[in-house]
């Protein structure tokens, strides 16, 4: 055999044997522990900095393993893991999926353990806002865990640009948002600036659904009701941003990253975005400079319906695989402690632990925290369809993409077409 020296053959053989041996060794059973707990986080950023060292010092008989499983994949991974008997005890998911997973028997009614938490650790229990429980519950009020982190979407804009253009703020209504966005594109376009940064594809409608609710939109059994005046106004708002040139022409191919980067990179004057993105915005343009601010999402002009500021939670849920309920409760309580919730809140998502809001370290890291408190203190937990939330969101995502890529389409016809699709997705 040409070009294959004895040495190479031996090396290959040795590698093969080593590989097999390593595989065999590493696949062996783990060391037995008195009690063990497995936790799946939705992002690396949600993991406490001490990586459960404090917890294991407090409860030395409980060993904790943790992994990161992306929030986008966690549902299917969880179902596979449950089938394989390899499921975590606690998993972080998106609040919209709680009811659906509960229906599938994948997560556990943990209400009784939450009550025990209240008895044993009243301090942390009482620090948590209502959204912490609402974001981890189904429509029947059963609690499956706790939502320690939740975000909301706010209208965020460059005050210095609006000052320059002589536009007064707060803007409050969609017609004024459109006016401001158009003015930025028309007057500052030569500086490579445009009015409003939007998403056009690839991610869920997390940004657009809150705008619908802020404009007075309603949901029935978790299905948005868009085939009406409010739905048409909502569609027209996005279409007008595109058609008028207030949004960037490349928007149909933009995901959340490109939308955010346009604002952070000082090319876009406005965006609807969550508070966690203010961290990189602040690094680029310090909040104290007064060059940007935020307000609640815009309403329709003359709106009589209630404005609702939506909260999206990322709850930790106890799965049906959990056999040590006390250990799971203790872990949730540990994650809820202000010190750990604060770490995540500083670098990433805002926490539902109210004690963090007054923390000097937190306030120093997020100088906008006090200003945003009135907007975030009473967030509305988005109701979702109990069994078909994901399918409903898929239709909304498709509609969002159409609103942006086809701004000339008849809004009423779109509303009617997609209401039918939403109803079908919800099994109606």
């Amino acid at each position, binding site marked *: *055999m040409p070009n294959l020296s004895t040495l190479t053959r031996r090396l290959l053989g040795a590698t*093969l044997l080593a*590989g097999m041996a390593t595989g065999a060794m590493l696949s062996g059973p783990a060391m037995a522990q008195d009690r063990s707990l497995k936790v799946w986080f939705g992002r690396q950023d949600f993991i406490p900095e001490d990586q459960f060292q404090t917890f294991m010092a407090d409860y030395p008989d409980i060993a904790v393993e943790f992994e990161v499983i992306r929030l986008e994949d966690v549902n299917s991974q969880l179902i596979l893991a449950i089938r394989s008997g*390899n499921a975590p005890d606690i998993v972080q998911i998106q609040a919209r999926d709680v009811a659906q997973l509960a229906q599938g028997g994948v997560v556990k009614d943990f209400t009784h353990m939450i009550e025990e938490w209240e008895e044993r650790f009243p301090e942390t229990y009482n620090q948590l806002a209502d959204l912490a429980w609402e974001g981890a519950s189904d429509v029947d009020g059963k609690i499956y865990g706790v939502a320690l982190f939740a975000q909301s979407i706010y209208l965020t804009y460059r005050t210095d640009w609006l000052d320059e253009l002589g536009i007064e703020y707060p803007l409050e209504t969609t017609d004024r948002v459109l006016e401001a966005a158009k003015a930025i594109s028309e007057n500052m376009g030569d500086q490579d600036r445009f009015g409003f940064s939007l998403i056009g594809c690839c991610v*869920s409608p997390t940004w657009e659904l809150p705008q619908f609710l802020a404009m007075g939109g309603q949901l029935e059994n978790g299905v948005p009701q868009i085939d009406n005046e409010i739905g048409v106004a909502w569609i027209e708002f996005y279409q007008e941003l595109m058609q008028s040139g207030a949004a960037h022409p490349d928007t149909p191919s933009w995901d959340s990253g490109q939308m955010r980067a346009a604002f952070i990179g000082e090319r876009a004057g406005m965006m609807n975005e969550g508070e966690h*993105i203010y961290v990189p915005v602040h690094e680029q343009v310090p909040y104290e400079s007064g060059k940007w601010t935020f307000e609640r999402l815009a309403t329709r002009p003359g709106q009589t319906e209630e404005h609702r500021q939506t909260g999206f939670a990322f709850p930790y849920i106890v799965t049906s695989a959990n056999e040590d309920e006390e250990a799971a409760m203790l872990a949730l309580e540990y994650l809820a402690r202000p010190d750990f919730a604060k770490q995540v809140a500083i670098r990433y998502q805002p926490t539902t632990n109210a004690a963090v809001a007054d923390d000097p370290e937190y306030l120093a890291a997020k100088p906008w925290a006090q200003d945003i408190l009135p907007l975030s203190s009473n967030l509305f937990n988005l109701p979702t369809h109990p069994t078909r939330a994901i399918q409903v969101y898929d239709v909304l995502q498709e509609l969002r993409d159409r609103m942006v890529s086809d701004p000339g389409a008849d809004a009423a016809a779109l509303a009617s077409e997609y209401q039918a699709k939403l109803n079908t997705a919800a099994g109606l």
Partner: protein
Amino acid sequence: MATLTRGGETAMIGREPGFFDALMARFGRVILIGLPLAFLVIWTMVPLIWALLASFKEPLEIYESRSFWPRNPSLDAYWTVLGMDGFGKWMFNSILVTVVATIVPLILSIIAAYAFARYLFPFRHVLLLLYLVPRIIPRVSLIVPLNDLMTDLGLINTYWVLYITYIASAVPLATWILVGFFKAVPREIEESATIDGANMWNRLRYVILPIAWPGVVTAAVLCIREGWNEFAFVLALVTETGMRTLPYALYMLKDSMGVQDYAVYNAFTILTVLPLLVVYLLLERRVVDSIVSGAVK
């Protein structure tokens, strides 16, 4: 140039090929061959070059500027990737499963392909077709049954689950490639070896494999590529961070809740592709050497 003589008159037909004809011929070759090749090279290389240059950019620069070139070239993204907890482990995992998922399928495929190419056993054509079944079924639809099977075997979150699934998906591909190469080896050469006293193993070892060596290397390259880039199985059958391979870790970098750092993403991609490129280059030389040495003989 030809001449035609009729009634004492000579007429000139055609003319000598001159400079203009040579130029047109060369121009034609450029148009017909050179331009499509150049287009294909650009088509293939531009994304790679873009990824390489993007890996030297600042985190927001990709969003802000359409320029191909980095404003302030920096290796920060590479240091970020190399400093990631677990990067070394993911690289080790990728190398380990790729080596195993290349050597084992090659050994199995060489034996299987030899049998299919040389032995007239019943149903061989049907069996060879059945070999393709695992590759015809969409990988996604295999995940749930595989998960159940591997669970019953207690192999979830182990290297074995990757070895088995990767080997199972590489063997059909390698076998089909090798059957063609083995069939192309003239039977007479083998018969001569048999007359000289060579048994089956010796014929395979000293006659078939050296001649069909480019096929073996081709199959090896494809097995390496399969193992190195495989994503669906590792995503579905492995959840532990320490068991992940590079493609899974790359996927984990995508973050729809923050601002995507494309410099880091591309640096990770380049570092993932680099070992594969080196292997390709090394094996490509072996393929060429084998073909050339065969031609000279």
